């Protein structure tokens, strides 16, 4: 978590956003929760999965009833 906290602090610095240490720690916890949640499902992706596939997918599946 310390390294994630360092990363959060660095990113906020890069964006010119000044936040106190307790808030940086909270953002690190929040980021860890999100990234862990996403990592639990993204392992099923292959390099064929493009981010732009979604729109084509729902059009293909469109119901015409």
């Amino acid at each position, binding site marked *: 978590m310390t390294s*994630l906290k360092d990363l959060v602090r660095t990113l906020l610095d890069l964006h010119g956003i000044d936040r106190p240490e307790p808030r940086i720690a909270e*953002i690190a916890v929040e980021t860890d929760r999100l990234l862990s*949640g996403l990592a639990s499902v*993204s392992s099923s992706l292959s390099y064929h999965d493009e981010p732009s596939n*979604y729109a084509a997918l*729902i059009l293909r*599946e*469109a119901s015409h009833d």
Partner: protein
Amino acid sequence: MTDLALLDLTAAIEALDSGRATSVALTEACLTRIEAHNPAVNAFIRLDADEALKAAAERDRERAAGRVKGPLHGIPLAHKDMFDRAGRVSTGGTKILKDRTATETATVMERLDAAGAIDLGTLNMSEFAAGPTGHNVHHGDCRNAYNPAHISGGSSSGSGAAVGARLVFGALGSDTGGSIRLPAGVNGLTGLKATYGRISRHGAVPRSWSLDHVGPLARTARDAALIYKAVAGPDPRDPTTAHQPPVGDIRFDRTDLKGLRVGVPSDSDLASVDPQVLAALQASLKVLEGLGAKLVPVSLPDLKPMYFTAETIIKSEAAAMHREWLRTRPQDYAANVRVRIEAGLAIPATAYIDALRMRSHLTQAFLRDTMGDVDVLHLPTMPIPVPTRADTDMETAGGERVLELVGRITQFTRPISLVGLPAGVAPCGFDGAGLPIAFQLVGKPFAEASVLGVIDAFQQKTDFHRQAPAIARPAS
């Protein structure tokens, strides 16, 4: 004498068509109710009474001359304060945009104008459309039409409360994780989140470009359909609306639902749903079954990955949009909104891209495994009874308990926003405190007509949508 504002939108149109009412009379009736009851619900941010009355008089002159602009000719509506009108301010519920004058008019506003609708003003909303409860530190909390101690739902809070309290005949809202369906559900209304890309978002204040949807809140499925049809369809100014199937006609003549397959999640899928809510949902299934629909057991996917994926996309896109304001105007955000947006600044680009890639995967799996053998899927709108404003106040109360409660509100709506499918909600009961309970009906891509048609058939057999809040019951 009947209060004209208590008519539903469809009845108001019939009254205009038959000459039993004028647009001026409808507008005055709404303005009278707004003056009397808006203080209770705090639904309006700006009221344009003089302009609305002027427009109503013009619509009456046009009608008298045989020039009816469209299906909503002379009907007073009002919309979430995030749809631009050139020369006017739309605040997005924020302090940051309070002085921003729009240079263009949102496509949906142009289409409602072309259909002849009248605009009464702008409606309260969660700051930057972030938050499912209707709290707002800048404009004051919006309040539930049935009980002001309870939440109005959000982020289209004013749209839900204004239509629920019968201050207007219908409203547009936007939905990124439930923001049409939740305020519609908790205010006893019918709401429709159309398929992603069905309705233009041009000129609407964004929350998350990849997940934002626009749609109507109204008193019935027929009312919602009138607004939906007026605004849906391709728009060259919003590329996501290209190549969609025709909007098509919506059948409201179904006397039964024979042949319709309704997907019903298993008991374990709904284990987290409150017993009162569950009982109302089960009773609504009995009504659909009684109409001839076949109830088909389905298995819901684990909703958590869908939730995480949507959250990653929303937070990443919001952080990109707000980055400059977070740096230059942090004090102008509500503290709870600021902290949720800035959390997105630390999400790596790879995680955001993975979330977009996962969206296709999860959508494909949802369509195949959950929707594959059914026409519509029956879900809760909110798994808990409508909570109070005090219990969900993230700004002044905060804490884990509040965050957990607020998180539960979007449990069954946010995953559906991720897959972009059309979803309508309608009232199907009331909890012990007299607050509405609603079911959510999810359709296949671009099958809004099917969703609204089924809700209409349900409403022809039930009267939950007619059980107005106390402030909107005719004097006896």
